């Protein structure tokens, strides 16, 4: 299989049609690359997003559990009308 063109410059010029052939190939390769690369990037972004979502949900659950504990602690404090704040509340403020 011998190269059709004698040297590199002929390959670029392609007998005057080079600009059309190379521009067509450039756009095609660019479009195909974008088609192949975009989903890979999107895939990683989706995984990050899902991971952040589940972390946020876990965080929200932990907060709501802590609030329930505070309410129970608060009620028991009110019942025994102790004057000092229960430690868990203080830690809440400066958290």
């Amino acid at each position: 299989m011998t190269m059709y063109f004698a040297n590199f410059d002929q390959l670029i010029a392609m007998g005057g049609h080079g600009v059309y052939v190379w521009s067509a190939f450039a756009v095609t390769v660019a479009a195909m690359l974008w088609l192949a690369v975009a989903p890979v990037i999107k895939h990683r972004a989706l995984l990050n997003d899902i991971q952040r979502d589940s972390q946020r949900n876990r965080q929200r659950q932990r907060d709501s559990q802590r609030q329930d504990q505070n309410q129970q602690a608060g009620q028991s404090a009110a019942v025994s009308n102790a004057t000092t704040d229960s430690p868990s509340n203080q830690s809440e403020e400066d958290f």
Partner: protein
Amino acid sequence: MNLFSDWTWFHRLGSPRWFYQNSGRWLPWLSVVTLVVLATGLVWGLAFAPADAKQGNSFRIIYIHVPASFLALAGYYIMAIAGAVGLIWKMKLSYMVMKSAAPIGAVLTFIALFTGAVWGKPTWGTYWVWDARITSMLILLFLYAGVMALQYAYHSVDAASKAGAILALVGTVNIPIIYKSVDWWYTLHQPATIKLTSAPSMHPDMFQPLLVMIAGFYLFYALVLILQTRNEILRRERNTSWVRELAAAKMTTNTIANEAKSE
């Protein structure tokens, strides 16, 4: 047990999780093979194939225009079949495949149109010629745009998938009619000049790279469709447990990799 119980392999095939895991294994091999085939086809067509007697070297654009046109049309049928399978067996995965196939097909149709137009310049002297092949390709692009626009127009995902599937099916019934009527219309007004894709009368040295390129494009289409469908699976199954575990597992491996890099 009724007939459908032993179709479990068919329904297992349809489970997004099964597809996600298995496609994960195929992807590396598929991408390597696709790259190799496309590279050989390109180099062969560009540098080694002989130029056309009449058109000179501009005919080399055939090596991307014809495969892209084939895939644009085949892609529409693949999309419609995925939609039909979704409508008939109510399989979520095939709706996802349909939704992913639409943009890929549209980009391939655009490639076919662009290369056809650029090819027209040296052959006919103008970029846009109402040639039968290119006009049908333009209508196909509108069909793709319609299916894509319909998918994103609905709140409920189910309604969007069903509507998209129905439009794709209506489209497939119409494609042969459109192609035949555009051909008839073209011959009505224009004496038959050289056809853009006179493949059979080509010299074998010219024809072989074309076959390689068509194979390369089919592999490329399969690769990109799998990639897009995997994303669609993550989007739709994002609050299932297996996806959350997957995301957590991926993150830990990445953080380890980052730490290894940062030391």
